[in-house]
């Protein structure tokens, strides 16, 4: 896959530290996302991938270090500033997070109605165009409860791009999809990135899928970026935790067993 011409970075993370209730999530994390690229953020469960997204969106604040989005630090912004920042960012949630009291059309129209005063005919055309882009123009009148998991995620994607964001964040976009829906989402991420020039961050643990489209990947482990580079470079990395993750080995630096008292002792013990 060709890398886009290295442009300015949209997201910069330097020496980030973040702890929550005594547990260190990030300890010296460095990461940067180039404009126009698809950047994958991978890592075993519990390495703070979703926490990173919350930090990017200004939902939580880091303990120390620098985290900037479009050159602004969410941690230093007030509520108005954070909301202004969020309008430039689209986010696709793992389960879609569609509004259950609105139909498909109104879900996609939701950000437009909240932030713009577009005349109804124009709004309708915009929504239909975004639905067409994800192949669901025919489902505009459906209730969200009538959608399959894959369709719900595509509706959520249409909603995420309806404000024409500069940065699009995908939180685990491949989880729980059948191979066809997965292929559709994968192609959509790539198409949206290429045709609209949207910078994309994909948080996932599906190594195979994301390797096919990502320009750059980060692998998080132990609060740091354990490896960074193209998917091929990641595979060639010798660090044990990277090898375990990329090859899907059940045991390694991330142990198979949760720490427990001695097995024999516990079995022989009288309750």
């Amino acid at each position, binding site marked *: 896959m060709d890398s886009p011409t290295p442009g300015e970075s949209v997201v910069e993370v330097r020496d980030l530290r973040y702890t929550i209730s005594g547990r260190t999530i990030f300890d010296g994390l460095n990461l940067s996302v180039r404009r126009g690229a698809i950047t994958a953020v991978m890592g075993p469960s519990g390495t703070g991938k979703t926490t990173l997204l919350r930090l990017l969106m200004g*939902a939580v604040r880091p303990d120390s270090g620098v985290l900037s989005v479009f050159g602004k630090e969410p941690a230093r912004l007030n509520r108005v500033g954070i909301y202004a920042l*969020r*309008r430039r960012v689209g986010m696709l949630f793992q*389960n879609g997070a569609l509004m259950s009291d609105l139909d498909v059309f109104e879900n996609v129209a939701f950000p437009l109605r909240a932030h713009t005063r577009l005349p109804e005919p124009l709004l309708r055309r915009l929504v239909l165009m975004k639905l067409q882009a994800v192949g669901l123009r025919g489902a505009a009148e459906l209730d969200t409860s009538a959608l399959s998991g894959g369709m719900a995620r595509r509706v959520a994607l249409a909603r995420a791009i309806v404000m024409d964001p500069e940065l699009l964040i995908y939180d685990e976009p491949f989880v729980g999809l059948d191979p066809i829906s997965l292929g559709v989402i994968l192609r959509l991420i790539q198409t949206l990135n290429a045709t609209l020039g949207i910078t994309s961050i994909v948080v996932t643990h599906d190594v195979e899928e994301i390797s096919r489209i990502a320009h750059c990947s980060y692998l998080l482990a132990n609060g740091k970026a354990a490896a960074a580079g193209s998917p091929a470079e990641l595979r060639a990395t010798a660090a044990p935790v990277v090898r375990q993750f990329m090859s899907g080995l059940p045991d390694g630096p991330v142990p198979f067993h949760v720490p427990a008292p001695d097995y024999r002792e516990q079995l022989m013990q009288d309750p």
Partner: protein
Amino acid sequence: MSGNFHPLGNVLAKAGRVGLFFVRVLGQCVPALNYPRLLIAQIFNAGARSLIIIMLCGLFVGMVLALQGYDLLQRFGSESALGVAAALGLVRELGPVITALLFAGRAGTSLTSEIGLMRATDQLTAMEMMAVDPVRRVVVPRFLGGIIAMPLLTAIFDVIGIFGAQLIGVGLLRVESGSFWSQMQSAVQMRDVKEGLVKSVVFGVACSLVAVYEGFHAEPTAAGVGLATTRTVVISAVLTLLFDYLLTAAFLNS
């Protein structure tokens, strides 16, 4: 001794949190009026959908009042005051209180579980991420809808209740229809109606606030939403009866 202290501290801490949330909700009330469609939908949800149960219960309460009232009044030979007794009891006391209790069970629980499930399915977080304040978009319309619906429901409860009392008092127990109505007309003052109205608005604020607070702060799990729904009913009922006592005392004093 210290064991008794902690629950009180918890109650006070919770009251403080609800108070802060109340201020946040009030701050968003005016901007939320820009979306009249959302508000109307919620008045329909809380009001129109509670109508049947309110009317049915109003009818039964009125009928029981007539039976009990007649039994009591005839001992003093003043059955003709049945209309007054039923109307005053309903307008000042039973109407607002029972409507509020029914409202908590019917509309309050559905508000709590709806908002709680929105939290559990990330809908509220998604709104935050789309730079939409969920308090303005989700909480305030439901809160205001409840406050507007409560006095309307109370008025309907009162009217149906009086009709039920007349049904039994005049129709079954043969109280004279003329004195039933004329005594009611001369004895029930605007002051009494005002007392009922004030009570129903206060109960509306309390019950709606509890319902949206519990939903908004529900733990995002199945068990958490269930617990929050239960708390809504319990806290609403206790607050309703507490405020009822305070307001009654205040009105009798004035």
